[in-house]
C-alpha cells in the first residue's frame, strides 16, 4: 500500500482498451468525481471502436436523408457484398496484430474462387477442399518464409501476390477459360441461399468472426498473437511459441482468403479471374479503420467488422446519391483512413498521458 503512492494515482477505473468482443460503450452519465476517468474511458473506446462510433450515426442520418437506404433489401445487399471483404479482412487482422502484413490476400481470394469453380464439377466437398488446400499452402509458405527464414512480410507476401495471380492466369489460359459452378448444386446454394433474406455468406462471416474473436481473446494462442505484435523479443524471452504463432496467422489468412473466394464463386456461379485486384488494400484499410494498430500488438476483430461495414456503407451511400461518380468512394474511404490514423495517434497519446503516473 505504501508503494502505491510511488506508482501512480489510485485510479482503479482505468481504461480497458482491450475490451472483449462486443463490449458496450462508455456510460454517458458518469459522476463528476470520475469525470477524468470517464473521459479516458471514452478516449480508449474511441481508439478501439471508433469505426462503430462513426458507423451508427452515419446509418441513422443517412436513413433520414435517403429513404431508399434504410430498406431491408438494401441492408441485405450491402451486407452480402461486404461479407467477402470481411472474411478476408478477418485473416489480415490477425496478421496485422502480430505486426506483420499480408498483401497476397487479393490474389489468393481470386485464385480460391477459380479453383472452387473448377472443382465444383465434382461436388461441394472438393469445391471447398481444393481452394482451401492450395490457398492454405500459399499461406503456409508465406508463414514459413517470414517466421522461420526471417524474411520481411511485405516482400514475401508481395511475391505471393504476384505468384498467386500468375497461377490463376495459368490455370484459366490467361483468363480465357471461365469455370462455371453447376446450377442448383449444393455448392451454389452456399453462395446464393439465404435465411430470412440474409445470405449464407453473411452468416458464415459472422460465425467466423465469433469463433476467431473468442480464439483471439480467450485462448493462449490469441494472447500470444497480441504478445508477438506488442514485443516480439519479449515474447521470445517469455518462452512463447513466437515462430509457430506467426506461421499460423499467415496460414489462417491464406485459408480465409481462399474460403472467401470460394463462397464468392458460388454466389457468382463462376470463377471470375479479374476479381480481387487491390482487395488486400481494402482489407488493410478496413482493419486499420477498425482500430487495429498497423505496428501490431493491439486490435480487435469486432473493430474490423465495423471497418468493413463502414467502407461498404460509404460505397452504398455514394451510389444512393447517384449524382456522384462512384470513383469518389475511394476518395471518401481514403479520407476516412487518414482521419482514423490521425485520431488514433491523438487518442493513444492522450491515454498514455492521462494514465501515466
Amino acid at each position, binding site marked *: 500500500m505504501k508503494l502505491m503512492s510511488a506508482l*501512480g494515482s489510485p485510479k482503479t477505473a482505468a481504461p480497458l482498451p482491450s475490451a472483449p468482443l462486443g463490449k458496450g460503450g462508455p456510460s454517458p452519465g458518469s459522476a463528476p468525481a470520475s469525470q477524468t476517468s470517464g473521459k479516458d474511458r471514452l478516449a480508449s473506446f474511441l481508439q478501439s471502436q471508433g469505426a462503430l462510433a462513426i458507423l451508427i450515426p452515419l446509418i441513422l442520418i443517412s436513413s433520414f436523408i435517403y429513404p431508399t437506404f434504410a430498406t431491408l433489401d438494401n441492408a441485405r445487399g450491402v451486407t452480402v457484398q461486404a461479407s467477402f471483404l470481411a472474411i478476408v479482412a478477418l485473416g489480415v487482422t490477425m496478421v496485422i496484430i502480430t505486426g506483420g502484413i499480408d498483401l497476397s490476400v487479393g490474389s489468393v481470394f481470386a485464385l480460391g474462387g477459380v479453383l472452387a469453380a473448377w472443382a465444383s464439377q465434382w461436388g461441394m466437398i472438393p469445391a471447398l477442399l481444393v481452394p482451401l488446400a492450395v490457398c492454405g499452402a500459399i499461406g503456409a509458405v508465406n508463414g514459413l518464409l517470414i517466421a522461420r527464414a526471417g524474411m520481411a512480410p511485405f516482400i514475401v507476401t508481395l511475391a505471393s501476390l504476384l505468384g498467386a495471380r500468375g497461377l490463376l492466369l495459368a490455370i484459366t489460359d490467361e483468363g480465357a477459360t471461365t469455370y462455371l459452378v453447376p446450377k442448383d448444386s449444393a455448392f451454389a446454394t452456399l453462395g446464393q441461399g439465404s435465411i430470412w433474406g440474409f445470405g449464407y455468406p453473411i452468416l458464415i462471416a459472422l460465425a467466423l468472426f465469433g469463433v476467431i474473436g473468442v480464439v483471439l481473446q480467450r485462448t493462449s494462442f490469441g494472447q500470444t498473437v497480441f504478445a508477438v505484435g506488442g514485443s516480439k523479443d519479449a515474447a521470445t524471452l517469455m518462452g512463447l511459441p513466437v515462430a509457430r504463432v506467426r506461421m499460423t496467422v499467415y496460414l489462417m489468412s491464406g485459408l480465409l482468403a481462399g474460403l472467401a473466394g470460394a463462397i464468392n464463386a458460388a454466389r457468382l456461379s463462376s470463377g471470375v479471374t479479374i476479381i480481387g485486384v487491390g482487395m488486400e488494400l481494402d482489407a488493410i484499410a478496413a482493419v486499420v479503420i477498425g482500430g487495429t494498430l498497423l505496428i501490431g500488438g493491439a486490435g480487435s476483430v469486432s473493430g474490423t467488422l465495423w471497418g468493413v461495414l463502414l467502407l461498404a456503407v460509404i460505397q452504398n451511400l455514394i451510389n444512393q446519391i447517384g449524382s456522384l461518380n462512384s470513383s469518389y468512394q475511394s476518395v471518401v474511404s481514403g479520407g476516412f483512413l487518414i482521419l482514423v490514423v490521425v485520431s488514433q495517434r491523438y487518442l493513444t497519446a492522450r491515454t498514455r498521458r492521462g494514465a501515466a503516473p
Partner: protein
Amino acid sequence: MKPPEAAASAAAGRQSPAPPPVLEARGVSKHFPGVVALDDVSFTLEAGETHALVGENGAGKSTLIKVLTGVHRPDGGELRLSGQEVHFARPFEAQQAGISTIYQEVNLVPLLSVARNVFLGREPRNRFRLIDFPRMNSEAAALLDGFGVRVDPRRPLHTLGVGAQQMVALARAVSVNAQVVVMDEPTSSLEPREVETLFGVIADLRRQGIAVVYVSHRMDELYRVCDRVTVLRDGRHIHTGDLAELDRMQLVSMMLGREITEVRRHGVTSFSQEGHDVERRPVLKAEGLARRHQLDGISLNLHPGEVLGLGGLLGSGRSETAKALAGALTLDAGKISIDGSVQRRHSSASAIRAGISLLPEDRKAEGVVPGLSVRENIVLAALPRLSRAGIVSRGRQDRIVEIFMKRLRIKASSPEQKVGELSGGNQQKVLLARWLCLEPKVLLLDEPTRGIDVGAKAEVQALIDELAQQGLAVLLISSDIEELIEGADRILVLRSGASAGELTGDQVTEGALLEALADHSPAAPEAGTTENAGEEAAR
C-alpha cells in the same frame, strides 16, 4: 510461490556428503563472429544463495546469462541443473526447467494488461479450456500485492511506472515455480523504496531455497544482498568466492584487471608527459545536471587547453554526462553555460553551433555512415557551413577533406573510398575529422580508442594531446585506466550518476583512481570536491 520440494531437497542434501549445485556451467565457451564472448568459463550456483555476477563492459556477463537462460547455445562446455546435464534450445526450455530471468530493460508486452503479462503462456482456464479472465485478474492482483504493487491488473502495462513494470516482471519470474531467478541489473530503474521491496523479495526467495544470480554495478547493493561473487573479465573467469572476504578495492581491481600500485605516467601510452597550459576561465560549465535514474547532480568545469578525464564504472553516468553536455539528452534539472552564457534550450543543434562536438561511444550506430565515402562522412556535419543557398561547393569540400586527411593521417586509398572499408582506427579518425572541421571549442570524446588497433590507438591519443595543446577543451571518457591517467590533466570520478571525487595534479595515479572508483575511502576530500560538499550541505 513456495516450493516445499526445493526446501526438502535442500534439507535432504545436507545429509548427503556433496549436494550438487542447483545450476552449474562447466568450461562454457561462446564465440561470435570476430569475438570470443566467453572463454572456458565455469560458474556454480548453490541452492538458496544470492550470487553476484560482476564485470566491466564486454566481460561476458550478458553472454553467460543468455547461455544459462537458453537464449544462446554454448559452443563448448556443459550446463548442469541439479547435477543433470541439460541443453536448452530456447528460452522456453530453460523456463520449463525452472530458470526464470528478469532482464534489464523490462521485457514485457506494453500494450497488454498487467494480468495478461503475468500469465502469458500459462493462463488459468475454465472448463471450456478458455482463459478465465476473472480468475486471472484476481490471481494477478493477489500476486502483485505480495510485491507491494497495488494496481488494477486490467490496466495496460505501459500505463504503469517503470519501477512497477519491473515489479510485474519480477512477479512473473518468481511465480513460475523457479529454482533459479536471474536478475540482470534489476534496480537500474527502481526508486529507493522499490529497491527495498526487491530486497525483501530476494530474502523471501533465499528462505525458500531459491537461488538468485544478481547482476549489478552498484557496490552497495552487491554487499547488501549477495553471498558469493563471480568476477568475469574479457570473457574469462577471474574469481569466485565469498563476497565478505573481498573489500571493494579488491573487487574493483579484479573487474578492471589492475593491480593496486602507485604507478603514474610510465609512458605506456602516447600522451605527452607534460601537463597542458590551462586557461583559467572555463569554456564549458555544467551545474547540477540531473536526469531520473541516470544523473544525480553532476557539476564540472572544462577549460580551454585541458584534458578532463571522466572516470567511473559502467553505469556511473559517464556517457550520459557527455550526451547531456552535447545536448543529446534531455535533463530534468541542471544548468549548462558556454563561454559564460547560460544555454536556455540546449539541443544537439545549439550545442554544435556553440562549438561543442561529441564523438559518441558507439561509432557504428551513432557515428559513421559506412556506405558513404570518406569525403562525404567528413563534410556531413559541416555541409550547412560549406554551402551557399543550398549548393555545396565541391572545391571547398575537397580542400577541407585534404587538410584533415593529412593532419589526422587517415589511411584511405582516396577521399572517395567508402568508410565501411576502413579499419576501426581510421573510421574513428574520420569521425574526429568530421567534428574538427566545424572548428569546435569543446571536444567530448566517449571511449575514443575502444576497439581500434594499437597503432591507431597511439595516433588517436597523440592527436588528442595535440588538440589540447592547440587550446581545445577536451573531455575524455575511457575505461582504459592507463589512457585516463596519462591522458587527463584532471580526472572527475563518477559513481551512480554523481560526482564521487576529483583527482588533480599528483593525485592522478592508478591507486587513487581505483580507490575513488571503488568508494574504498573518501577519495581526496581536500581537492575539487569542495564544490560538491557545499552542494550537499545546501540540500
